[in-house]
C-alpha cells in the first residue's frame, strides 16, 4: 500500500508559511553558527564569559521570537493543511510554549556556568555549543508531527548532553556519569526505536495523525497486529519515561546528576523533563487516542502504565530522597518525585477525552519546576569550586548566614519545590491535584483519588527534605570553609529564577492563560478538544476556539439523546 498522504504532499511544494514552523529552531541554529565563528577568533588565555552571554542573548531572542509568533500560531488561516514539510512539523502554540521553556532553561543554566568552568580550568566554548545543540533538538521535538522527526530530535537533544555530563575532563566522576548516561540513554533510545518500528509495521506510516487513523482497524484485541501495537506503544512510552526519569527507568538520574557539572544538571533536570513530557503528551494523545489503547483505569492501556509510573515515582522518589546525604542526589531523587507529580496531571487529564484541557496543569507545573530547580542548581554551583564543592548536607552549614543573598534565593527555590505558598511550586501542585480531584468528582474513578491522596501525602515527606536544606543553611554550624565562585552571571541567573518563582506564585493569571492557550491550540488532537467544551467549571473554555480546533467533530457537540 502506497502511503497516499505522502504522495499527495509531494505534489505540493511547501508554502512560505510553513517556514514559520522552523523559525525557533532556525534562530538557535544561527546562534550556533555565529558562536562557532566568534569562538574561532577567540584570543587564547582570556576568559570566555562573553560567549556565555552571547548564547544567553541568542536563546532569549529565540524565546522572544516564540512570543512574537504566538498569535500567528493560533491563526487557522496561516497554513491550512496538516503539519508543515510533508507532515513533519507542527506549528502551534503548544510547540512554541515548550520551545520558549527550553530556551529559558538553557539560558539560565549557561548563565551559571562560566565561573564553574573557569575554576575547573575547562573554560571552553564547546560547553555552550553542546547545550545549544541540545536546545535545537528540544525545539524540534516539541513540534514533531512524525515519529521520524521525533526520534532524530530525541537523539539531537540527548547526545550532546552525554558529552556535557563528562565535560569536566579532570574529574573522574564526570567520566563515570557520562558513561552511565550514554549506555542507559542509548538502550532507552533503542527500545523506543523498536517500538517505532513495530508501530510502523502495524500502521504502515510514521505520521502521528495517520497512525491514529490506521490503528482504528486494529483496536479489536483479536486482530493479528494487536499485540504488536501494544508492545510498540509500551516501548515508545518507556523511552519517554526514561527521559523524564520516571520510576522503572530512573536508575541513571542520581548518578548522572551527582557527577555532571552542576549548572548543566539544572538544564538536564528541567528542560529534558519538560520536553519529554511535551513530546509524550503529543505522541500518546495524537497517535493513540482510541479508548482501547488508552485503557482508562486498569483496562491496561497507556494511561494505566502512566498511573503506575506516577504512583511509584512519587513514593520512591520522595522516600529515597529523605535518606540521601548528598544534596545533588537528594535533588535527583526529588526530581524523580516531580516526574511523578507531573505524571499525575498527565493521568488525570488524559484518562478520558472530556478532561483533555486539564493538561494545562502540566504546562504550569513545568514552568514552576524549571525556575525552582535551575535556580537551586545555580546556587549549588555557586559553592562548586574545584576540590572544595558543596556535596553533603553538612557542607551547607551556615552558608545562608554568610551569604545572605544565596540563602534567601535558595529558601525561595526550596519552598517552591516543596510546594509552599506564595511560590509558583505551590500553585503548580495545586493545579495538578485539583485536576485529579476534578476527574474523580466527575467520573468517580477511585484510582484517581488514590493517586491524588498519595501525591499530597508524599509532598509532606518532600517538605521534610527540602526544609532540611534550609535548616542546615541557617541553623547548623559550618564544618569547612567553602569560598564561593563569585560571578555576576550566577547572581543574575538565580535572581531571575527567584523573581520568576515569586512572580508566578503571586500573579499566576498570565501564566495560566498562556498554558491554557497552548493546550487548546495543540494540533492533531482527534477527539479531545471538542468534548472539552462540556466541562465548564474552573475552565471557562472559548467555545469558538474549541470548535475551530475540531471542526470535524462539530456534530458530536450535540449528543444524540435517542440512542
Amino acid at each position: 500500500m502506497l502511503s497516499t498522504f505522502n504522495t499527495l504532499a509531494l505534489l505540493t511544494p511547501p508554502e512560505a508559511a510553513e517556514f514559520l514552523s522552523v523559525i525557533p529552531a532556525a534562530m538557535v541554529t544561527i546562534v550556533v553558527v555565529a558562536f562557532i565563528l566568534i569562538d574561532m577568533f577567540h584570543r587564547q588565555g582570556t576568559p570566555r564569559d562573553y560567549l556565555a552571554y552571547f548564547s544567553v542573548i541568542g536563546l532569549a531572542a529565540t524565546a522572544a521570537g516564540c512570543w512574537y509568533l504566538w498569535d500567528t500560531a493560533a491563526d487557522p488561516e496561516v497554513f491550512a493543511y496538516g503539519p508543515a514539510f510533508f507532515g513533519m512539523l507542527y506549528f502551534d502554540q503548544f510547540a512554541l510554549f515548550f520551545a520558549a521553556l527550553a530556551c529559558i532553561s538553557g539560558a539560565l543554566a549557561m548563565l551559571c556556568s562560566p565561573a564553574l568552568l573557569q575554576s575547573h580550568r575547562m573554560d571552553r566554548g564547546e560547553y555552550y555549543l553542546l547545550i545549544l545543540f541540545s536546545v535545537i533538538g528540544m525545539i524540534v521535538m516539541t513540534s514533531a508531527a512524525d515519529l521520524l522527526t521525533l526520534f532524530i530530535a530525541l537523539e539531537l537533544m540527548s547526545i550532546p548532553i552525554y558529552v556535557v555530563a563528562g565535560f569536566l575532563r579532570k574529574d573522574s566522576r564526570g567520566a563515570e556519569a557520562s558513561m552511565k548516561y550514554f549506555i542507559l540513554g542509548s538502550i532507552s533510545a533503542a527500545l523506543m526505536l523498536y517500538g517505532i518500528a513495530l508501530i510502523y509495521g502495524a500502521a504502515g506510516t510514521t505520521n502521528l495523525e495517520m497512525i491514529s487513523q490506521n490503528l482504528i482497524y486494529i483496536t479489536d484485541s483479536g486482530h493479528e497486529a494487536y499485540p504488536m501495537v501494544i508492545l510498540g506503544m509500551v516501548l515508545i512510552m518507556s523511552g519517554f519515561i526514561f527521559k523524564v526519569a520516571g520510576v522503572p527507568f530512573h536508575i541513571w538520574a542520581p548518578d548522572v546528576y551527582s557527577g555532571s557539572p552542576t549548572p548543566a544538571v539544572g538544564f538536564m533536570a528541567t528542560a529534558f523533563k519538560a520536553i519529554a513530557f511535551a513530546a509524550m503528551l503529543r505522541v500518546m494523545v495524537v497517535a493513540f487516542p482510541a479508548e482501547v489503547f488508552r485503557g482508562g483505569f486498569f483496562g491496561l492501556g497507556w494511561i494505566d502504565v502512566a498511573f503506575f509510573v506516577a504512583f511509584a515515582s512519587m513514593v520512591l522518589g520522595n522516600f529515597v530522597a529523605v535518606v540521601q546525604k548528598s544534596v545533588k542526589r537528594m535533588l535527583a531523587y526529588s526530581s524523580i518525585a516531580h516526574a511523578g507529580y507531573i505524571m499525575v496531571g498527565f493521568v488525570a487529564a488524559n484518562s478520558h477525552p472530556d478532561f483533555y484541557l486539564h493538561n494545562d496543569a502540566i504546562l504550569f507545573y513545568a514552568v514552576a519546576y524549571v525556575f525552582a530547580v535551575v535556580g537551586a542548581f545555580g546556587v549549588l554551583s555557586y559553592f562548586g569550586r574545584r576540590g572544595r564543592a558543596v556535596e553533603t548536607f553538612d557542607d551547607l552549614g551556615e552558608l545562608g548566614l554568610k551569604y545572605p543573598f544565596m540563602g534567601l534565593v535558595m529558601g525561595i527555590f526550596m519552598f517552591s519545590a516543596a510546594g509552599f505558598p506564595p511560590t509558583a511550586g505551590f500553585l503548580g501542585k495545586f493545579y495538578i491535584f485539583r485536576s485529579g480531584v476534578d476527574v474523580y468528582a466527575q467520573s468517580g474513578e477511585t484510582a484517581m483519588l488514590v493517586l491524588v491522596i498519595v501525591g499530597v501525602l508524599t509532598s509532606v515527606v518532600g517538605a521534610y527534605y527540602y526544609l532540611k536544606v534550609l535548616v542546615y543553611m541557617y541553623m547548623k554550624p559550618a564544618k569547612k570553609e567553602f569560598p564561593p565562585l563569585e560571578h555576576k552571571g550566577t547572581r543574575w541567573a538565580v535572581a531571575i529564577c527567584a523573581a520568576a518563582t515569586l512572580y508566578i506564585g503571586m500573579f499566576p493569571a498570565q501564566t495560566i492563560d498562556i498554558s491554557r492557550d497552548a493546550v487548546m491550540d495543540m494540533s492533531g488532537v482527534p477527539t479531545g478538544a471538542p468534548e472539552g467544551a462540556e466541562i465548564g467549571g474552573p475552565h471557562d473554555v472559548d467555545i469558538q476556539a474549541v470548535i475551530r480546533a475540531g471542526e470535524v467533530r462539530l456534530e458530536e457537540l450535540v449528543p444524540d439523546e435517542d440512542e
Partner: protein
Amino acid sequence: MSWEPTLAHFLILSAAVFSIGLVGVMIRRNAIIVFMSIELMLNSVNLSFIAFARYRFEMDGHVFAFFVMAVAAAEAAVALAIVIHVFRHKRSVSVDELADLKY
C-alpha cells in the same frame, strides 16, 4: 520444494538479534562490547524497518533505516570518545570500575 522467507521470519530474526543486544548490554563488562551490543540493537531495528517496508512496498521504512544509521554513527563518535575518557581515568574499560558515584 522452494522456500521463501516471509515477513515473520525477518521479524523473528530481528527480535532475536535485538534480544541478543539487550542481553549483551546487561551481562558484558567491557565498555566496547557493551557499545557494540547497543549498535546490534539499533541495527536489528533497521532490519525490522526494512522488512516492513518491503512487505508494504513503500519507502518510509527504508528512509527511516538510513536516518537510524546516521544516528548510530553520531552515537559511535560520542561513545568512543567517552570510552577513551573513562580509560584515561581508570586505566581500564571495564564497566565494573565505574562505581564511584554511589553512597
